[in-house]
């Protein structure tokens, strides 16, 4: 184990004066070290995953909700079918293949997409893929509410939108926080596929740096720890949200298992 490797220059493999040289702007013109590079790569991982997370939460909540609409009007039936198709489409293709589709295939047909930077495309791919899974969790959450809740809201004269807005969603979203936590952690982990389309994130760093330095153990260890740390941070953030949104006197029992 030789952690000194992180203080070596990425250009000539010589030890640099300050490990954080170029990031912190200490020695001007100093060569960037592997540590600098690692930190930048982590930044990319967080950026890609963060953007993907926002996309997936929004889309997932919407699609999951649409799937539970009562099939009483034509519009509703259409929306149910739309969201079902959405979920089936995006959860039945491996994320890696979806990333390739977004990066190589779709821009070949929709030319303006070519102008988008690759991290955006990866975020879209991650976001859409995860939204299908989140939609399933949201749907399960809504369906796990006693059917009487919807009936009570309706009986009070609330219309479908109002029932969802004031009664069903506030409860369902609270219930699905635990499975959403695992989905969010999965998203961070899945962001490692971004390296396949040249986003300079942690996995790309790991593969390139271990090739250059031949210090695989140290490099992989650092990268693994950063991934675990990111996932753990999400976990804590969600736990905080869960605590904040806890309802006095209400016991949530949740056995939902989240797959990765």
């Amino acid at each position, binding site marked *: 184990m030789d952690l000194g490797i992180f203080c070596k220059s990425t250009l000539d493999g010589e030890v640099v004066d300050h490990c954080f040289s170029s990031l912190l702007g200490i020695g001007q013109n100093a060569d960037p070290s592997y540590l600098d590079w690692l930190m930048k790569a982590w930044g990319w991982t967080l950026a890609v995953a963060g953007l993907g997370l926002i996309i997936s939460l929004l889309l997932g909540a919407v699609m999951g909700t649409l799937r539970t609409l009562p099939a*009483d009007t034509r519009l509703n039936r259409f929306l149910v079918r739309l969201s079902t198709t959405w979920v089936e489409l995006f959860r039945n293709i491996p994320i890696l293949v979806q990333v390739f589709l977004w990066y190589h295939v779709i821009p070949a047909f929709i030319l303006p997409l070519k102008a988008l930077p690759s991290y955006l495309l990866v975020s879209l791919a991650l976001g859409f893929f995860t939204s299908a899974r989140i939609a399933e969790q949201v749907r399960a959450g809504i369906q796990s509410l*006693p059917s*009487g*809740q919807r*009936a*009570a*809201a*309706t*009986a*009070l*004269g*609330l*219309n479908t939108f*109002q029932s969802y807005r*004031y*009664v069903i969603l*506030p*409860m369902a979203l*609270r219930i699905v926080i635990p499975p959403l936590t695992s989905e969010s952690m999965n998203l961070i982990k899945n962001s490692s596929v971004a390296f396949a389309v040249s986003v300079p994130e942690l996995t790309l760093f790991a593969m390139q740096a271990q090739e250059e330095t031949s210090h695989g153990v140290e490099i992989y260890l650092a990268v693994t720890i950063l991934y675990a740390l990111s996932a753990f941070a999400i976990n804590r953030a969600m736990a905080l949200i869960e605590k904040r949104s806890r*309802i*006095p*006197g*209400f*016991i949530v029992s949740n056995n939902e298992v989240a797959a990765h």
Partner: protein
Amino acid sequence: MIELKDVSKWYGDFQVLTDCTTRINKGEVVVICGPSGSGKSTLIKTVNALEPFQKGEITVDGIQLHDPKTNLPKLRARVGMVFQHFELFPHLSITENLTLAQIKVLGRSVDEAKTHGLKYLERVGLIAQKDKFPGQLSGGQQQRVAIARALSMDPIVMLFDEPTSALDPEMVGEVLDVMVKLANEGMTMCCVTHEMGFARKVSNRVIFMDQGRIIEDCTKEEFFGNPDARSLRAKDFLSKILAG
């Protein structure tokens, strides 16, 4: 006030309601009883348009339910409903439970809704709990809040679906007391319940259902006073219920 004519309903191939015809007049208290699965809940839900029906006609306060032009949310707001499992909204405080629909459906101001709602909360004896959440109340208290919530919409009729059967026995009384008071004040009520004591005390009419049909529909006096005139099924059921 409420009129049902030949109402039939199917779940797929399974017929839950068969040609149900009856009426509930203003100020009347009607008790519906019958064995489990006989369609009592379903019947009461069709009256509130919570469940669609495939045949027949229902008229509530002169409005035809099956008319596609009917504004169902508005109609439902005029019919109060109380459920077996209370169905308070667990994420809202008691006050918010009472005011939500008043504000969103009737368009009342927050203050107005609050004053109005708390008035009914006081009537059911729970004004002290106004800032608690449903999970912090006992079952009997929750059900009384649910009654107050329905009342604060100023309904023209109240529907009850087994309001006491999910309660611990010691809490049944407090809910029945509220219902008796309401009946005595002249509220039009339709209650699915097996509390025969309540039926004896305040009901005007008793409806007995079995397998989706209304088998008996007679005054309380006929129902309890003249058991021999009852159908075999109703007699059997009554003997079982009253034996407990």
